[in-house]
């Protein structure tokens, strides 16, 4: 098992930059998520770690060894593909034993190892079946089997649940996480599904437009987003953004939005110009004394909670409130912001401003 260090890695295809100088560290035994919208460079990053693409520049360390220019066969990394990529002309047993055969392992040992892995994954009965007739979940298990059988230093997974039915995905993600906890293997997992990333990951890297936007635990990324993109991408419905022109001083804990004073975490830097106040829907409270006032445009009932769309002079907001709270469409209501959860951003750069809330997280990254 191993630690993976990505240092200033860049990948360029002709004129197209797929990944801009990116750095992050995957600790030994982490279940590490690479999250971002499609085309953001997350899969390219994963493929560079595995050796399926060679970085244009930068370094990749696996267990302290620089491997960025080595062929995949010399990296001791396993890869699970989105479409599973099981060898269609071989049965399940042969698929799983293939990596061992390439190492020249003795046949008796291969057999033993394969049945051991099949036991872990619960696919002993399938070993002699062709892979063509298997269900999506079983294919996924075989693909995992092929990855874990050679006990690699690290696992790369490229949206491994993407090809499964929604219902089954839930089940498989639990199974995957359990498998990881049992083996403690360093795993890098690519997904565009923020829920999956939050649910399964120890750490998350959020990528957008070929750059790493933020790197941290799911909690840090959700509560202390480093940029407008991260704040918007993570969470459903996403964070509310209230644009305002103004200034905040370091040390102040109040912002003025078009005449309304809003409490914010104590600022650690000054900024002025076009700013954005970001607040998550669940951090808005309906309150008659609230300074922010608006009209309820729509309600969405979600069982335990409901999402209200509220039009305020400062902009449209979504609020998540308990579903037993009675709200009429058209009603005018006041809103309270839970001030300690608020993040301010610069509109143009998208950067989050440092405050008492996110200081520890932002200064690190």
């Amino acid at each position: 098992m191993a630690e993976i260090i990505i240092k200033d890695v860049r990948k360029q295809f002709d004129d197209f930059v797929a990944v801009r100088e990116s750095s992050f560290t995957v600790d030994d035994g982490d279940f590490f998520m690479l999250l971002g919208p499609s085309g953001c460079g997350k899969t390219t990053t994963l493929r560079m770690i595995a050796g399926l693409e060679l970085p244009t520049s930068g370094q990749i360390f696996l267990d302290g060894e620089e491997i960025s220019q080595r062929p995949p066969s010399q990296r001791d990394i396993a890869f699970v593909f989105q479409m599973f990529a099981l060898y269609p002309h071989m049965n399940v047993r042969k698929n799983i034993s293939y990596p061992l055969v390439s190492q020249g392992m003795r046949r008796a040992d291969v057999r033993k190892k394969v049945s051991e892995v099949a036991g872990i994954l619960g696919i002993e009965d399938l070993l002699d079946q062709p892979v063509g007739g298997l269900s999506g979940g079983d294919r996924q298990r075989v693909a995992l089997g092929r990855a874990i059988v050679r006990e690699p230093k690290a696992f790369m997974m490229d949206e491994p649940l993407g090809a499964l039915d929604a219902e089954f995905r839930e089940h498989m993600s639990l199974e995957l996480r359990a498998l990881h906890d049992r083996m403690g293997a360093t795993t890098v997992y690519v997904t565009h599904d923020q829920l999956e990333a939050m649910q399964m990951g120890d750490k998350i890297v959020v990528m957008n437009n070929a750059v790493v936007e933020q790197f941290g635990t799911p909690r840090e990324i959700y509560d202390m987003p480093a940029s407008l993109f991260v704040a918007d991408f993570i969470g459903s419905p996403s964070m509310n953004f209230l644009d305002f022109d103004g200034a905040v001083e370091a040390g102040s804990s109040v912002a003025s939005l078009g005449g309304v004073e809003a409490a914010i975490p104590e600022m650690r830097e000054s900024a002025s110009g076009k700013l954005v106040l970001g607040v998550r829907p669940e951090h808005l409270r309906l309150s008659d004394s609230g300074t922010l006032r608006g009209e309820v445009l729509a309600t969405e009932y979600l069982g335990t909670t409901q999402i209200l769309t509220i039009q305020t002079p400062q902009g449209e907001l979504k609020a998540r409130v308990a579903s037993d709270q009675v709200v009429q469409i058209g009603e005018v209501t006041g809103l309270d912001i839970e001030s300690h959860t608020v993040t301010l951003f610069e509109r143009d750069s998208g950067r989050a401003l440092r405050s008492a809330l996110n200081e520890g997280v932002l200064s690190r990254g």
Partner: protein
Amino acid sequence: MSGFSVTEPTPRSKRIAATLVTLYAVITMIPLLWIFITGFKSPADAIAYPPKVMFEPTLEGYVNLFTTRTRQTQEYLDANPPDTWYEEIVRQYDMTVVGPSKFGERFFNSVIIGFGSTFLSVFLGTLAAYAFSRFRIPFADDLLFFILSTRMMPPVAVAIPIFLMYRQLGLSDTHLGMILLYTGVNISLAVWLLKGFIDEIPREYEEAALIDGYTRFQAFYKVVLPQAATGIASTAIFCLIFAWNEYAFAVLLTSATAQTAPPFIPTIIGVGGLDWPAVAAGATLFLLPVMIFTILLRKHLLRGITFGAVRK
């Protein structure tokens, strides 16, 4: 009464389709059948009018195909009674067998040249198609178009330059020359067909093999090739059919050593009158290798034709 399906043909339309297909098959098969039958007729039966459907089969055509014969005097014939079954057949016309004909040799030339060029076309075609499919080759599209452009005129149009070139290079009337020529004609077809097939094979298979510890060549050999078997088989059939049947270049470039069967078969007619049964026998034998090859690869060919039509 169950409801009818919109997509499934009804039993009645299935029957009609089957009848039409059978009818078509019969019509196209009749000439082949007639050639096959004629091979077993006597020369007299072969040209009888009205044509004979019922006749006494004889191997005369096959004997004439494989032998050279000469007329002998009655004394000689009386002094040397026939000692083999084919000698007996020949004796009906007061002739004796003096040696084998060139047919066996020509047939063998066809086998070497046909299969040799097919192998070479498919071998080179597969490598080229793989490269075009998987690697970032500069000007790949232009190169592919250039390869295809060699098929944009009938190959015979360049017969004279090739004739002169081959004479200069000493390739005229050689097996190697004919193999290279047919490979040259077939390779564009092979590259294009195979590129289509290899494009359809997901890259992930090779990538999985690379990750599993194999080299690029091993991944190609162990994972891509088995997947491309269908395409390779159907490409091979098309290449073989062309090389096997090619007539014009064979007439022009080959004579004594490397002549193939197609230019040879018509010359049989000239040997001792219009010997239709011998020609028919030659044509029948000539058909066999392609037929056997196609039947052996039929399973792949059928899959090959529908390959890529439906994504599974």
